[in-house]
């Protein structure tokens, strides 16, 4: 599971995120939404150990990401919006590299299965430069899923995917959650968030303005009763909106 307490990140005079606390149980999918610059990517980077929080703690699978990073990262897969691949490794070698990093003993069979699932089987020996943007994204997803992470952090997971790839990715996220993974995903695609997420965290200027299921959020804002998630999102993140957390 993921437990975040009083998380804050300061860049000079800018408070990128402030006083964020939330938890994601195994099997749960939390949607992180907010306008551009709200602090979504900073939050995900703090969760993944890429940047250190100024204040607060992040625990993944019972391990503090700052104090006990190796076991925490062993449980984690972070899939960024922009796939970062190594120029001189083939598709297959990327998976072999990840298998060794996470000590995946049955890597061959898992890799074959993932490549087939993501339609990359015929690209096993291809270099990243020979892959399209969507294929690169699929490879990054395959690398993230190879070690069956119990914590999945996804930043705009559908970027670059074709419609079939999007549908498959939605099924994959739901499937991983059903299998017991705690999932956090950030997206501007509100229908995706609505479809997959059991709870939503809406950020504005680095602070949580709403947290809970859509029903909880609407219940806390009676004026939004019967409105779509998009309307709820705009109402809560537009200037003049008040936090209800």
């Amino acid at each position: 599971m993921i437990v975040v307490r009083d998380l804050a990140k300061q860049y000079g005079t800018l408070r990128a995120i402030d006083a964020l606390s939330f938890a994601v149980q195994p099997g749960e999918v939390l949607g992180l939404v907010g306008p551009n610059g709200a602090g979504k990517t900073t939050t995900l980077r703090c969760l993944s150990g890429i940047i250190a929080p100024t204040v607060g703690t992040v625990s993944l699978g019972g391990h503090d990401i700052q104090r006990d990073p190796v076991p925490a990262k062993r449980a984690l897969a972070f899939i960024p919006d922009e796939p970062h691949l190594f120029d001189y490794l083939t598709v297959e070698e990327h998976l072999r590299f990840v298998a060794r990093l996470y000590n995946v003993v049955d890597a061959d069979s898992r890799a074959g299965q993932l490549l087939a699932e993501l339609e990359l089987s015929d690209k096993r020996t291809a270099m990243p430069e020979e892959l399209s943007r969507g294929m690169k994204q699929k490879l990054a997803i395959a690398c993230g899923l190879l070690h069956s992470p119990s914590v999945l952090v996804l930043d705009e997971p559908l970027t670059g995917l074709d419609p079939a790839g999007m549908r498959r990715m939605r099924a994959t996220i739901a499937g991983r959650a059903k299998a017991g993974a705690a999932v956090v995903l950030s997206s501007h695609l509100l229908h995706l968030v609505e479809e997959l997420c059991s709870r939503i965290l809406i950020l504005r200027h680095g602070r949580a303005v709403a947290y809970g299921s859509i029903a909880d959020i609407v219940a806390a804002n009676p004026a939004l009763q019967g409105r779509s998630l998009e309307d709820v999102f705009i109402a809560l993140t537009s200037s003049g909106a008040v936090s209800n957390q």
Partner: protein
Amino acid sequence: MTTAPAGALAYLIARTMRNRIISMAKRLRQPRYAIGFVFVAGYFGLMVWSTGLAGRSPAPATPAAGLLGGDTFRIIAPAALALFLLPYWFTDSALLAIAFSRPEVAMLFPAPVSRRALLLYKIVRVQVATIISVTIIVLLWGRGLAPGAPHWMAAIGLFTLFATMHLHRMGAALVQVAAIRHGRSALKRNWLSQLVGLVVTATVISVIASQGFTAAGDSPAGPLTTFLNGLTAALSQPWVRVVLSPFALVVAPAFARSATEWWPAFAGAVGVLALHLVWVLRSHAAFEEAAAEQSTKLHAMIEQFRKRGFVEPERKIKRRLTIPLAPGGHPAVALVWKNSLNFVRTFRPLQLAMMLLVPLAAAGYFGWKSGDVHTAVAGISALFALILLVAGGTSVRNDLRADLLNLSSLKTMPLRGSTLVLAEVASSALPLAAIQCLLLWVAALALQMSRTPMPSSEALALVATLPFGLIGLNLLGSTIRNGVALVFPAWVRLGADGGGIETAGQAMLGMLVMFVAVVGLLVVPAGVTLALVLLVRPPPAVATAVGVVLGAAVVVAECHVATLWLGRVLERTEPSAVAAS
């Protein structure tokens, strides 16, 4: 170029420079950069004060000044320049000179800017780096350059030399690109540049291969003096001087002996520079003209070229060459494996062959002259190993210098910071140590077969312990290089490419920092080893073996402490600190 795009490109260059300077100044608020800046500025201040750059009475000429101002150097320098430029024509190393960054491609290539304007933009932008580089070199070298002429003349002379070299590299790259895209027709169009290249190549090789040897004859002087005398005599022949005269014109102002000598030399160098500029822009124009005349298919190819541009020239990746990796075991091995694949896949045999050409030719020559081929082979192998030890790390960059650009990925890996740093350090140190070890084993074998072999017990001790010593030394060098990249990412060129001639000054400064750090870190191991040998006084073979192993052990211990600290630095470093650089 019409005014509008020219103005936009000039604005881009000027604002980039301005913002870069501002961000550099802001970076000095961080203590590590402030301390680094104080050291570098203090060093340069000392250089300015000691060499009289600030208007004090000039310091006496240094031995370097004597060498650079000497007749032998002035005769050999044009041939050396020709040899330096030669690989640009036979390898793909020139192509990086016409590479554009991703944002430039995204913004400029679809914009209504002609290719000529793009090339001019590229040329102007590189000059900024060249000016910085020249300033550093003049400050470092002081009176060694253009002895007798004011420093500003030396600086301008050096700038002209570097700018011409860069334009030459661009020209070679454009010819290659045109040949790749258009085959024979492009070769026909560029017949003049190819003819010039062939004549110069043939001249330099024929002089070194035959004329130098025969002109020197048998001499009572040592083989090196004999060789230099022979080479100087051969290069002084009128026809050779004519062929190499453009190169002589280019180097002349940088090493002029007086202000009077500098002015005409500078005029000649500017002439060659201007010809290069015309050549580069004209070869580009010819490319456009040919494109318009070709078929629809070719036009589509040109459009694709326009979209992709000159970005990141395609390299032939030897994908079948692989290294096995078991899925189980220490995860850090995966990182070394990944970096080793990077090394073997970007390794260029042709470039290595060209690098080895001169030492091998010299070995052959000295062996032939002295009648002792084994000693010559031993000497040249050892020399090449030494060169790799000192400078190999600047070209073999499959470590943090390449991987820091992927810092986000590195930081999500389930490895401690110190383990990550150690794996990265080992990635470049181990292949270098292996190559040096092989070369030195060849040298030892050749020496044992020569007329003056080492005592066999000492030779055996040295051969057996060499891997330890070389691993220690290479780990030390790699730790420093990776440490500098990690602590000062904004001051180090990150990525697989170490930069061209425009970054020579920065590379020289880096070498100086490296040298000072290595000497500082070798004090303790050398002291411990020396103390033990003096106290115990073992037999020479034992002293050799114990000395090498003990020294290596102390160096490895130093590296271990350094990687622990660097690991903490890596854990604290945020990707934005690297991306901002």
